[in-house]
Every structure is written in structure tokens, then in C-alpha cells.
């Protein structure tokens, strides 16, 4: 399939994704397209297959069958590193930050800037870029040199999202980014997510909070026990419909 001439090629195209672990079917037949600057929410009960789907898109799991295309180019990621190289970043529920390290080292974790003939860490450069980025995204942290351990949950999630923003060129996946946060912190993180849209990134977000889903998303995709129940435009649906799609009642 060659879509390279198609100007409006979607950033992400999932077609007939099927995933089974041994005999257990986790995802039945899932298809979804995401455009740049679009936020799609993935909702469903526990065990519906949302996290599995995120893992497939981020290269952690390979689909049993079905195709993934990035910018119209069909791809199959061998591992998460390849997905990252294609411009896909993930923000995990449990953060994936190194607590004892400074904010700037986490921002560049695994992709540190170096300088000089001996490959010295360019701490100054990393601190500067981090400070600029957290300022742009309005993540309020004392300094780029602060240790993650000394930050609040919301600040940490802010750092995790800032990191994804920095490195993603196409798509950001968020797996319940506000599950562990208070009200004010959640609002702040939602601002950070909305800022991803302004940067013309595609966003796929898992959330258990329907309020949040309706505040943030352009479209809502419902999963139930591995089956894709449907996709709705957020502006043209309401909570009742989504709830009944989730529960099947």
C-alpha cells in the first residue's frame, strides 16, 4: 500500500490489529487512524485491552496479525527503541523516571548530549534545553537540576510529559497519566497534554476519568474485552452513550 503521495496521510494507521497471548485473545480486530494534532481517548473497563494496544503501538508487543503504518509507511517495530526512533513516545502510569537523578538527566535519559573528544556529558547543554522546555510547557519545578525524588507527583508527571514532548515527532501515548494525582495536579497535567496537540502531535490517551476524556479528546474509542465497540466524535456524543458502550448495558 503506497500512500506517500497522499498529503493527508494519517500519522498512525492501525488496521485489523489482532493480538493473542497463547490461547487468550487480548485484542480481537482493532482499526484506528490518528491525525496530527488530534487527541483520541481509549476507554474501557479493566482488562479491555487498552494497555495491550498501547504496548503494540509502542513496539513492546508485536501484533499477532494486522498492520501498523506511520505516516502511511507500514512498519513493524522489533522493540520499543525502534518505535522511539520513529517519533513515538510513551508516558507511563508509573512514570518511568529515575528518582535519584536530576530532572535534566531524566529528560535526556538514554539519549544524553555529549561533547568533546572523550564523549563527556554536556550537562550545561542538557540543563539549558530542559529549562527552556519546562518553561515553554509551564511545568513548574524548582530547577532542572532538582532531583526527581524531591518533586510532587504532578511535577513528576509534568517532567514525564515534557520528556515525551521533547522527543516525540509524531505520536505520544499516555497510559493513565493522572491516575495517581490530585485535582489541581490533574488540571496541570491536562494542560500539558493539550499543549501536545498545539505542537501538532497525535495523542492517544488511556483514561478512566470520563470527565477528563470529554475535556481533552477529539474522538473517543471504546474497547470491551478486546473488542472494538466503536469510535465517536467527542462533540457528537455524551457520557451516557459512552458508558453504555463500555459496559454493554
Amino acid at each position, binding site marked *: 500500500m503506497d500512500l506517500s503521495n497522499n498529503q493527508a496521510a494519517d500519522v498512525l494507521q492501525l488496521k485489523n490489529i489482532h493480538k493473542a497471548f497463547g490461547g487468550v485473545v487480548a485484542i480481537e480486530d482493532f482499526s484506528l487512524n490518528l491525525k496530527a494534532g488530534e487527541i483520541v481517548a481509549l476507554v474501557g473497563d479493566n482488562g479491555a485491552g487498552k494497555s495491550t494496544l498501547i504496548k503494540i503501538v509502542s513496539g513492546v508487543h508485536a501484533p499477532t496479525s494486522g498492520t501498523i503504518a506511520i505516516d502511511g509507511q507500514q512498519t513493524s517495530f522489533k522493540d520499543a527503541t525502534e518505535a522511539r526512533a520513529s517519533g513515538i513516545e510513551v508516558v507511563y502510569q508509573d512514570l518511568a523516571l529515575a528518582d*535519584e537523578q536530576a530532572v535534566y538527566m531524566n529528560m535526556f*535519559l538514554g*539519549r544524553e548530549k555529549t561533547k568533546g573528544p572523550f564523549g563527556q556529558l554536556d550537562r550545561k547543554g542538557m540543563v539549558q534545553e530542559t529549562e527552556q522546555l519546562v518553561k515553554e510547557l509551564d511545568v513548574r519545578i524548582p530547577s532542572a537540576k532538582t532531583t526527581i525524588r524531591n518533586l510532587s507527583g504532578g511535577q513528576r508527571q509534568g517532567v514525564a510529559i515534557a520528556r515525551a514532548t521533547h522527543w516525540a515527532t509524531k505520536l505520544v501515548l499516555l497510559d493513565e497519566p493522572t491516575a495517581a494525582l490530585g485535582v489541581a495536579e490533574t488540571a496541570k497535567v491536562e494542560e500539558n497534554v493539550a499543549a501536545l496537540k498545539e505542537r501538532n502531535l497525535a495523542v492517544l490517551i488511556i483514561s478512566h476519568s470520563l470527565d477528563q476524556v470529554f475535556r481533552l479528546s477529539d474522538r473517543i474509542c471504546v474497547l470491551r474485552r478486546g473488542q472494538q465497540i466503536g469510535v465517536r466524535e467527542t462533540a457528537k456524543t455524551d457520557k451516557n452513550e459512552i458508558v453504555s458502550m463500555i459496559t454493554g448495558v
Partner: protein
Amino acid sequence: MQSTMQKLRQLNLSQYVVYIGFLLIFLFFAVTLGNDGFLTQRNLTNIILQTAPITIMAIGLVFVLAAGEIDLSFGSIVAVAALSSAVVLGEYPLFVGVLAGLGVGLAIGFFNGILVAYLRLPSFLVTLATMGLFAGVARSMTNLRSVPVLNESFVNMFGSGALFGVPSLVLWTIGAVALGHFVFRETKFGAHVLATGDNARAAQVTGIKVPHIRVWVLTICGGLAGLAGLLYAGRLQAARYTLGESDLMTVIAAVIIGGTALKGGKGTIIGALVGSLMMGMLNNGLILMGLSVSDQMIVRGVIILIAVAISLRDVNN
């Protein structure tokens, strides 16, 4: 006043324990043993010379602990490496003997690393086993006999020699500390070691090859234990299966007191150096005080206990 107290409490005490402890112990011995030769230049130099193998091992252990692993086998590696080197030097030239010692250290460390990284066995158990295994190998290699080292250039290089008036053991210490500090603190590899020990999953998802890091740190530790073995063999002009046998506690204490976290993600080479010197000074002072060997062990144990308790206090909070 209260805010001062709070600031004091927020100060990461463990980072400075080693320097304060070093000064206190130095002052104590300077006052009590001032007339017994503690402060003579010869004695102070001697402390540094005796500490050299400890410092070298401590550098390796910083990498291992910072990566969230542990190595208990380095003491046995010291003996096997020293004996290998001494035996090979009996028939072959200098560089073959050096390669034998270092190679054996690197190989055992690599073996530890493969078991830990790819079979996912806990490093505590792997290195506990290899500690016993290679202690046995060291004993059987020469049937408990010690092997003299007669190669003069080897003895000069790793023992009693000097360059521009600086004893070779001091040069090895400075070189290893400088290189270790640079790699640990200034390179990507050092950052990846810390990230692996801090949060292996986070390191993994950001593309750091966590198993490679685990193999590397244990290999580095083995290689440095090999070097420590050469230094012992050079200084004593002989190798024996007992070399390194009693260094396990000393090195671990030096590293922890120096400010490296037992649970990974934090470490300092300079702290480990000062910790090692502190342990060496303690050893030296207790001997000069005329304590019997058993009393020395007790006092040293108590002091290590206090220092480790202070070092770990704020980690537990």
C-alpha cells in the same frame, strides 16, 4: 533557628559523613598517637600504599552498587588473579604475566555478569557462589603454596617502584581514581549505570541496554579486582590464596561510607577513595595503639556500624 534546623536536616548528610569521619578519626589518632609515629611522613605514606588495593577494588564496587547489583566475589578474584600472574611470570615475560592477572579478573567478572544479566539470577547469590568457587580455585591452583614473584620489573611496576619519586602504588591509585571518576561521572556509560540502578525499567524503556550495563559493571569490578591482585603480588613479591580474603567487609564499608547507595542509583568514586583511606587509617591507628588483632576487629566493626548507620539514615527516611 527552626529553619536552620530544617535546612540542616534536609542536607544530605550521607554525602559528607565520609569527610567528617575521616577528619575525626585523623584528629583522634593525631592527638592520641602523635608521639607514637602516626604523624610521621613515613607512616602516612604507608597508609596510602597499603590502601591502594582497597581503593582499586572500591572503584569497581561503586560501579556495581550504583547499577543496583552487588559483587561479593572480588576478594576471591584478587587471589586467583595474583596467583595466575605469579605463576605465569615464572616462565613468561612481564606483559604476559600482567595480562594473565587482569584477564582472569575480567573473565570472572564477565562470567558473573552473564549469569546476572542473562539468566536474571540475583547478583548477591551469583557472586556469593563464585566467591566460594574461586576461593576454592585459588587454594587448589598451587596446593595452598605461595608463589614468589621474582620478576623485577613487575615488582617495580606494581609494588616498590616509583616514577619521578612518586611510588607506583600511589600512581595506580591516582590513575584508577581519575579514570574511574571520569567514566562514572562524565560519560554516557556512567549515566546509564546510575539509571539502571535507580530504575531498571525506566532505563530499559528509554533505550538503555540494561543487561549490557549489568555485564559491564561486573566485568569492570572483576578487572579492577585483578589489578588489586597484581598490586598485592607486587608489594609482597609473592602471591598467596589468602590475598584479598579479608577485604570484602573493608571495601564494602569504604564504598557505603563514601556515599554510594546499597540499593543503586547513587555513587561517588571520590567518596569511595576517601572511605578507603579512612579504613586504612583506622587499621593503621588501631595497630599503633597496640590493640590485639581480635580487639582491632571489634573496634573496626563498631566504627563501620556507626558510619554505615549514619550514611544510610536519610536514605531510610
